[in-house]
């Protein structure tokens, strides 16, 4: 198993496919978004598993990596809100668009409808997207604002952060 991601500090899509099985095309197109953990390393951490209301996250030992049962997942985003490593994301396909839900702990917090710059896992600008949902800090169970951004479908597995232009 390749551990190069520990030298780089980010996962490539190939790493992700190898370490975390991705949801099926069909699941991604269903009416609920699906949570995907980008948490490939064994660390002692369990809040995602503890908060999941439908027990969709499997983790036998606190040091195990979380494995999401994508069929059970209802796309509620609680894991995205609580994850201390900010490593949970949600993906949903809508026609030729995709919606990616991610934590955002920087100022400014964008508003619904704002156009934002999309960043990939190494912080490169890869396009623009539109904010479709904002869960503010005070409504987040994990004290972390969570935003959902609509973008071209082909960027769904690349974009993991945003830059708000003021």
């Amino acid at each position, binding site marked *: 198993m390749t551990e190069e991601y520990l030298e780089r*500090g980010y996962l490539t899509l190939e790493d992700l496919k190898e370490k975390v099985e991705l949801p099926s095309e069909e699941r991604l197109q269903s009416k609920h978004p699906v949570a995907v953990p980008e948490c490939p390393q064994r660390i*002692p951490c369990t809040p995602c598993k503890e908060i999941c209301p439908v027990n969709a996250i499997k983790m036998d030992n606190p040091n195990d990596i979380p494995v999401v049962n994508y069929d059970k997942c209802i796309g509620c985003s609680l894991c995205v809100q609580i994850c201390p490593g900010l490593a949970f994301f949600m993906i949903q396909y809508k026609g030729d668009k995709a919606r990616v839900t991610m934590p955002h702990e920087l100022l400014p917090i964008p508003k619904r409808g704002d156009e934002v710059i999309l960043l990939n896992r190494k912080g490169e600008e890869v396009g623009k997207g539109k904010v479709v949902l904002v869960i503010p800090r005070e409504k987040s169970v994990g004290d972390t604002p969570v935003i959902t951004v609509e973008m071209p479908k082909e960027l769904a597995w690349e974009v993991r952060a945003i830059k708000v232009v003021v």
Partner: protein
Amino acid sequence: MRLEEHPVIDFTKRRGKKVTIYFEGKPIEAYEGEPIAEALHAAGIRVLNYSTEKQRPRGLFCAIGKCSSCLMVVNGIPNTRTCITLVEDGMRVERQRGSQPLPRDYKAPQWKEAEKHYGDIVIIGGGPAGLMAGIKAAEKGAKVLLIDEQPILGGQLVKQTHKFFGKREQFAGVRGIKIAEILADEAKKNGVEIHLETSAIGIFDNNGEKLVVAVEKNKKLHEFHGKAVVVATGAMEKMIPFENNDLPGVYGAGAIQTLMNTYGIEPGKRVLIVGAGNVGVILAYQLKQAGVNVVAIVEAMPRIGAYFVHAAKVRRLGIPIYTRHTILRAEGDGKVERAVVAQIDENWQPIPGTEKVYDVDVIALAVGLRPSIELLHQAGAQITYARELSGYVVRHDERMETTVRGLFVAGDSSGIEEATTAMLEGKIAGLSAALLVGKAPLQVYDEIKKAQKDLEEFRSGPFGKHILEGLKKVMIND
């Protein structure tokens, strides 16, 4: 420069009344509740003293009262640790030049004037380990006296804006600053007697009982009497050798967190971070949250030492991490203006031609911590070296008792680990101390066992492996 907006912390609520201090005669605006060195930094003053031998300018380094890099003359008194001494209206502050004498008319505090306090357990250190020890012992009915040299309870948690790992019952998913508040409230609710701005200077045996001698605000002597002592004095930052590593602007990672997250002061405009362990990458993220530019993180090891998820957080914000790179030197006239880094080969030698120069005003050292064991050492506890625990540590048993009967240890002072394990160790030490002083029923063993099991579980992954290796060298087996 002060920070006004922050995604996690509301500084306007934290700042006290405006006061004026006089730096070398010049009035400086400060806020009540903030230490002198921090207030000076906000006013753009970074040089705090000049070294004895070569009169080199020196500034902050640890900002938690441990390193002596911030000594100044305050109201005529030299050697004042300005990073933990709070401002007072009208205070006179001067740069110290080498060693300076006390004023002629200075009256040293007298032993016979020491204020005496009596309890069952004395706890030194009000961070996650000490607070948890205090809460647990007080819950069982022990009278607990807790002293800490900082002006605020919570230890290093007070500057951690990120959420902690572990299980939710261990505060996983809660920000450090919030955990500090919860623990401090809990300690007060349980009747723990708290003495802040009070530094323990010695632990003595007093006819089979314990005596902790301490100094409050550099002037008032105190005696704390009890039957058991828990030492939870944390750790201090390591330094690495490189040219100009004493230039003002070369700060310990924790000092930067203190400036920006505890007191809302901008540490600088552009920062280079040395070290990609958890502290280094978390610092990068926190700087970004405070709106400060991080130019890069350099790491001498071939791999990032931090939890991957912490590293991924900063990478996706565009902060580069260069492994197998080190800092060669700091440059600047009286303050950091540039940092020169280079790639290193297998023998840790810089590779010629790979130098990169960054224009930065702060160089953050996140190169590890070492346990603060001075008081344990002085009290006669057996010390041993454990590389895995980051230095010299005290030997202890499963109940966190050292080789000195009634002297307990918890948290980073027993080996560098995490706040989560510090709290678990604090729980064990507090309960065990309560048992020893006859304040807890035997059933408390079940609680101790649960905490021991939680520790074992927490350490069962790859990150806990080296801790367990270190503990093998340290543990006293009954």
